């Protein structure tokens, strides 16, 4: 029967979807299981004892998690302020003014990403040491900003390029100065794109490990550093709980992107 034939043709598709679901949700399940496992060792497929005692330990006043979380958030916020503060004028200039080496400037911003991270950060750490920036929040923020600026400038450029120039000209023609036009028309209309790039920079900073390790550790501890220490010490529960905490802003980011970043902005990234 045709019904049976249809069912048969669904089998490979169902298998494919199942595999995809496993690839996506497998590690997540493992993570969640580890976060609530009290005792779990080979060859058992599932934890032997469940409980929240590690959560208590992580968030206990003596545990480093709360302090690291606060550090992470403060650093991420400062990074956003610096990156967006620089990306708004830079992105506007790249999008609107006829700069001769526009493509080159956009590419130059990518250079920190083009080289292997480790040697770059080791050198940054060496230079920062001379200025007394090592082990300070400012030092870590600067390292994160060098990283976040790329995304911020690229996305801000795209957000401003996607804006119809005539909307600004309409304001100029009925008497608004250049600055007034920027504040009243350009900025509000580019806000969704700028917001998305801010969230992106925030998450990048929250997740950043290598730079923080070389410039900040051991004086400045962030969540990824805590996760690394816990993971290296074989303490999978602490590591999983930290990872889950880091996951929350990522999901929030997806929702913001979905809500605010329009396709016409995305299509202009890098142009």
């Amino acid at each position: 029967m045709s019904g049976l034939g249809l069912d048969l043709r669904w089998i490979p598709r169902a298998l494919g979807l199942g595999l995809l679901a496993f690839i996506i949700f497998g590690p997540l399940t493992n993570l969640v299981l580890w976060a609530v496992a009290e005792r779990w060792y080979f060859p058992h497929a599932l934890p032997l004892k469940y409980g929240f005692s590690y959560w208590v330990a992580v968030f206990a006043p003596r545990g480093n998690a709360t302090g690291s979380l606060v550090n992470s958030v403060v650093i991420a916020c400062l990074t956003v302020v610096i990156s967006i503060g620089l990306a708004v004028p830079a992105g506007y200039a790249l999008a609107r003014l006829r700069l001769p080496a526009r493509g080159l400037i956009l590419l130059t911003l990518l250079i920190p990403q083009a080289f292997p991270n480790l040697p770059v950060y080791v050198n940054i750490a060496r230079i920062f040491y001379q200025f007394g920036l090592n082990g300070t929040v400012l030092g870590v923020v600067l390292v994160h900003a060098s990283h976040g600026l790329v995304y911020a400038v690229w996305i801000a450029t795209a957000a401003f390029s996607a804006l119809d120039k005539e909307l600004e000209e309409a304001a100029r023609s009925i008497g608004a100065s250049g600055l007034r036009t920027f504040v009243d028309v350009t900025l509000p209309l580019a806000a969704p794109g700028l917001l998305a790039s801010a969230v992106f920079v925030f998450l990048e900073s929250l997740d950043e490990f290598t730079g923080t390790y070389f410039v900040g550790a051991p004086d400045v501890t962030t969540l990824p550093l805590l996760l690394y220490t816990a993971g290296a010490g074989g303490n999978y529960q602490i590591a999983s709980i930290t990872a889950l905490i880091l996951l929350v802003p990522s999901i929030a980011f997806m929702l913001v992107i979905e809500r605010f970043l329009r396709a016409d902005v995305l299509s202009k990234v890098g142009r």
Partner: protein
Amino acid sequence: MGGYLEIVAARVRYGDVEVLKRIDLSVAKGEFVALLGSSGCGKTTLLRAIAGFNPLAAGEIRVGGRDVSRLPPDKRGMALVFQSYALWPHMTVDQNIGYGLKLRRMPATAATARVTEVKKLLGLEEFGQRKPGELSGGQRQRVALGRALAINPDILLLDEPLSNLDARIRLTVRHEISALQRRLGITAVHVTHDREEAMVMADRIVILNEGEIAQVGTPTEVYNQPNSAFVAAFMGAENLVDIDVRVAGEAIEVAEGPQNRRAVLRRSGRRLESGRAIARFRSDAIRLSTASATSAEDGDDGLLLRGTVEQVGYPGGIWRHVVRLGDRSVMVDAEDRFDNGAEVHLRIPGDRLYVFSEAQQ
């Protein structure tokens, strides 16, 4: 002549290309001038130069005797209505219309009253709280116009504001805009590629061709006395025949040709030299008859052409014939239908015939 808006020897360049080549134009206060031309003729460039968005490479733009060529757009006292309307999507209709007043620091109560007045003028009373995205094309067009009118601009600039509207709405909005302009006494410069729109709206029409002014005149002048073959063709005289002329005082003698009979036309101020010439005429300026019926009639101030009907169609009201004249064909409208292959005579009265020396082109 002391115009209110004066453009003197204005040139605009994009890189090496000269888009506007020495434009001289004077617009009186309260006058409605249409810049008419096909796409790429520089009409929008000229409008944007007046508004201050295209810098002049040379020349001057004066408003009321004051040179504004170096001023930024916001200091020129003009308002531009864009083809795309360019309404701000994050503001309501009220905020869009009131923005110019906010910039001028008008007190809130006075500004609200002015916005209400403008909305009433344009029939937008109910839409104050809507965003532009929730309006139809015609309503957006009126908001764009209202935003420009709210600030009482010295000069209103319109960049093809009707081209995005349905054909039917366009006809009514045409009359609305010109009635409004006359009522408010605003000086207006209107860019369009639509001949009829320019004819019915404007006091004067400026026809642009490749960055130069081809002719300036009232609608009747540019329609009935085109000064060049280009203007004649642009104003609808698409039909074309080659003739030989000899200018003798106040008369123009047309020599007998393969398609035309010998004729004598009154000169009526035509600038013309003896020699090869072209004659242009509209499809509705012709009296069509069978070859045998008119053979006796002589061409006095009128041209008689001989041709063969090639095609007949009925677009409504009249019959439209395609008539072959040697290696050219012309369109002829007639009350009566002539069959395919019929030998016909076309008689064009002298005052409907636009003759230009071939060298003039």
